[in-house]
Structure formats: structure tokens, C-alpha cells
């Protein structure tokens, strides 16, 4: 479970201060599929980065599975992200010099798994996303939709407790977007906690719960 209390994020540019999150109180249950919506600049991605420990909030607290993240060092946060979280970014964010399987295997290797074991798990994750036949392809040899599926395979291969997705369909055509959302629904059915940022209502509606942000505050739950 992830719980935020009075979460504040402020950006400073010289003397100018911009408060992007204005005290967000939010609880995400285990196994929940949450969609965060809002117009551009509302603070939805910023909220996702705070909850996924990619960024440090200016104020408030984030409790993940009972653990106060304010007490974690940068190294502990890196380790926590590796073992507990999975990430899907808008622009796929897979490494161009690694094949699909190597991209998926990378976090597994970092977890200390042997190359053979990491390779097997990566292959299985790719198979779950119907990409087994593309395992040896480089990202440049894959379509946008396939690259995003590799990104999802990388995010779920180590069976994270939470899958974070930041605008996962923004760069994809309709068919590919539907495929990705279908995958998310299937993962959710199997108990995967998913927190997804999107500005597309038709995909947000596929989530279990939608929250809407406006000007750094939650306006609709």
C-alpha cells in the first residue's frame, strides 16, 4: 500500500517558487489499478515521480508498505525501486544497444540473478507479452508498440509490487494503445498494483479508480 499525506512539491527557479503539488492525500491499495488524470501541468506526472521514489517531495510524507520513505537514503531508494517497483515511460525508455531480452534481463542481473536465470525470466516475461520471437531484436528493429511491450516486460519481469506507468500510450497509435491497455488490465486481474498517468479518458476508464488533478490539487476522486 502507498499512502501520501499532505504531499507537497515545489520547484524553485531563482527567487521564483512554483508549487506543483499542494498537499496531496492519497492512498493506493495493494492490487488497485489507479489512473491519474488532469490537464497538462496539473502535476500528475510529478505526483507519480514522488510516489515511485524517482523524486524527493518538498513536504509531506509517503509511506510504502508501512515504511516512511523520508528515512531512506538515495542508495536505499535505488534498491527499493529495483526490487519493489516497475516503470513504464511514455517514450519506452529501453536501452538502444541492448536486445529486447537484454533490456528485460538488466534489472534481474542487478538483483544478483545469474545470467542464465535472468535470461530465462526475461524470455518468459517477453513470452507473456507475445514478444518471444523478438527477443534478440534491438529496439531499432521493433515498432513503437513492440518497444513499449518490451518496456512493460522489463517492468514486470521481477514481479514488482507496484507498476508505475507515465503516459504509456501517448506515443502509440490506437491499435498499439489498446494492446497495451489490455495488457495492463490482464496484469491487474492477476493482482498487480498499477498506478498510471494518462490524459486520455478512454484509457483512464479502464482503470479501477480515477483521480483527477488540477493545479496541484486533487479535484475529483
Amino acid at each position, binding site marked *: 500500500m502507498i499512502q501520501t499525506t499532505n504531499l507537497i512539491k515545489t520547484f524553485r527557479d531563482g527567487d521564483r517558487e512554483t508549487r506543483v503539488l499542494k498537499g496531496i492525500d492519497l492512498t493506493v491499495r495493494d492490487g488497485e489499478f489507479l489512473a491519474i488524470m488532469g490537464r497538462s501541468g496539473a502535476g500528475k506526472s510529478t505526483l507519480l515521480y514522488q510516489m515511485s521514489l524517482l523524486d524527493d517531495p518538498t513536504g509531506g510524507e509517503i509511506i510504502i508498505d508501512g515504511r516512511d520513505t523520508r528515512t531512506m537514503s538515495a542508495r536505499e531508494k*535505488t534498491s527499493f525501486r*529495483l526490487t519493489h517497483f516497475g516503470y513504464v*515511460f511514455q517514450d519506452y*525508455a529501453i*536501452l538502444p544497444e541492448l536486445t529486447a531480452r537484454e533490456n528485460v534481463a*538488466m534489472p534481474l542481473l*542487478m538483483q544478483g540473478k545469474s545470467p542464465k536465470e535472468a535470461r530465462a525470466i526475461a524470455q518468459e516475461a517477453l513470452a507473456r507479452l507475445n514478444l518471444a520471437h523478438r527477443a534478440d531484436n534491438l529496439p531499432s528493429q521493433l515498432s513503437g508498440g513492440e518497444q513499449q511491450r518490451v518496456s512493460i516486460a522489463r517492468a514486470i519481469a521481477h514481479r514488482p509490487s507496484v507498476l508505475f506507468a507515465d503516459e504509456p500510450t501517448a506515443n502509440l497509435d490506437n491499435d498499439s494503445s489498446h494492446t497495451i491497455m489490455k495488457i495492463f488490465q490482464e496484469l491487474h486481474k492477476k493482482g498487480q498494483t498499477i498506478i498510471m498517468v494518462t490524459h486520455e479518458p478512454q484509457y483512464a476508464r479502464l482503470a479501477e479508480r480515477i483521480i483527477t488533478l488540477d493545479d496541484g490539487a486533487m479535484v475529483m476522486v
Partner: protein
Amino acid sequence: MVTKFFLHARIGFFLAVRHIRRASLWTTSLIIFVMILTFLNLVVVSGILVGLIQGAVDQVRTEFTSDVIVSTLNDKSYIENSPGLIALMEQLPQAQAISPRYSEGALLEANYKTHKVGDKPNTAGAQIFGIDPAREDAVTNLSQSVTEGSYLAPGDYDQVIIGQFLLSQYVPVDDPNFAALDNVDVGSKIRIHIGDVTREVTVKGIIKSKVDALTRNVFMVDSQLRSIIGRNDGNVDQIAMLLREGADPAAAREALKRSGADRFAEVQTFDDAQPQFLKDIINTFNMLGAAFSSIGLVVASITIFIVVFINAITRRKYIGIMKGIGIEAGAIEFSYVFQSIFYALIGSSIGLALVYGFLVPFIAAHPIDFPFSDGILVAPIGQTMFRVGLLVAATVVAGYIPAWMIIRKNTLDAILGRN
């Protein structure tokens, strides 16, 4: 801690291998080319500088002193008990050939028949060596240095071969300290004045070499010189000894000393007999070589620094993503260090192959024609490997620092491309 280190190294290696394998061939080739040039700069520049003098040293060894040179003690005018010493040297197992030499200071005079009273005499000072032509040739290959006329034969009567710098037509500059004879060529008659004795001789050949002991002196058959100086006891002034292939000159010197040779003569290896100034020049050139090499090393380090920095900065987003998904900074840093090591090792390996497979043997076969020596490339394997180590160490540091600078940036800023 150790486990973490090896985990980082393993993942760093995994990333580095893939990065290199899938990088642009042109970029990789260019970086390796720069590393090869740097390696050559490290090894060849100092190698040529030292080789310039080493060439001179080697030539003095092969053309005059040979491996071991036995000469007159400072307070004696010849080597006493020379026949016994010669017999002892001939019996040394490592001796291949020896050449006893007589040596006397002389004044050479030319054009004396046309000389008019009041004219400046056509004279030059020189050392005259009396040699057994066959034995000398077996030790120093002297006949090969006679490029005009011909070499001495055992029965030559009143004939000499003369060093080129005793003849004015071969002296590039008019040096008042080294007088040379005018109008003398092969077949010319000259006079030799040794003490009170004067002998007219014919120039049979001219010696051309880069060794002063040959080019500023005169050689004649030993029996002829003996008759001029009136020495009949068989005592000589120098004995040059050529050793068998692979024999150690220092060991031969010690063997002679153990047999008491140093009671009658000074026993030196070719190295001992080198003038101090030559040793000083070698040391100075070594220092200069080290200085030039250091500059090369700095250039290589900066090159690798820039390459890695540009590489890391253009991949900043991917570095951020890796950190974002939990890949630790240490593993990413290792990948850049491994890439730097790869470039340094491949560059050095190709450089080593070039130096030892091509440059050293080629320059040995075709020495560089410096005015005072036939320059070779000196690249002792120990020193070269030390320089490879230096190059790798420098590139590791030069690769690590920019990687560390980029990797320590905020993860989210890197992912989003924010400054």
C-alpha cells in the same frame, strides 16, 4: 561489499561489451586509432631519441671496441705481457675472435714535394693503428667500412687506409681543431711522422663510417707499424675481443680479471669504455623521452575524457533510466571504465604489434641516417609494458571521472532531459 563490487563489475562489463559491440564502427575505429597514435607517441618518440645515441653506441661496439676491449694501463705505454694475454683471451670459451692493435700518435703530411718554404704545411694529427688485417676484419668488419680504394692485405708494404675526416674533401665544415689533409685521395703518397721516424706511405683506401675512431685515424699492417716504432717484443696497445652470440661481455671481463689480466691492462666491456658524455646524453634523452611521453599520456587522457564525457552526456537520458529502474551508479561507472580499458588495450595491442612486428625490425634493417649515427628504435619490452600499464591506468581515470560527473546528476532530471 566485495559481492557488490563484483556485481557492479559484472553488470558494467555486460553493458560495456554491448555498447562497444553495437557502437558505430567508425567511432570505435577513430578512438582506437587515437590510442594507437598515443601508444606510438609514448614508445616511439623516446625510443628514437634514445636509439639515436644507442645507434652510435652500437656502431662503436661493432666497428671499434667490439664486446670487450683491453687497453694499456694509464701509467704504461703498452700492454705488458701481451703475448700471454692474447693467448689467454684466445682460450676463453666465449671468445669468437680477437684483434691485437698497435697504436701510436702521428703527424700526417701531404703535398710535401710541392711544398714551398713559407707555405702552411699540409698536415694533420692522427692515431695510427697497426693491425692484422684478417684478425681485425674478423672482429670489426673493418673492410666493409673501406668505401673507396681497398682494404689492407697482410703483405701490404707501406700502405695505409685513412679515415675520411682526415681528408679535407670529406670534412663538411672547416674546423680549426681538426686539421685535415688537402688534395689526398686513393693512391696519393703521404708521409707519416712518428717521433723521429718518417715513412712515406700510399693511401690504399678511405674509411667511411660514423665512428670517430675510424674516421679520424689511420690503419696499417701491424708489422709495418712495428718496424716504424721499433717494437719487437710483441707487446701491443689494444686488444679487441668479439664474443660468441649470446655471451655476456661482463662475464668475459670478469673471467679475464680473475685470470690476472687487469695487472697488465685495463679490461673493459664496450659499455665500460663508453665516454661519460655519451652515457649522459643517453640519460638526458631518456628524460626528454619521458617528458614527451608524459605529454602524450596527458593528450591520451584528455582524448578519453572527452570521448567518455560526450558519450555519457549524449546518453544521459539512458543513464537516468538505468538509475531509475534500479541499476546502481557503480555498475554504470564500471561500464565506462571497461570501455576505456578496452580502447586502451586494443590501441596498445595494435601499437605493440606495430612496434615489435614492424617498426623495430624495419628500423634495425634500415637505420635512420642521422649525421653522427645510424639511429635505431630502442623499445625494451619491460619499459614498453610499463608504458602500456601507464596508458591503461591513465585511461581508466580519464574514463571514470566524466562518467562519475554525469552519473551523479539527479536521476529524474536525466530522464526528463532537464538541466
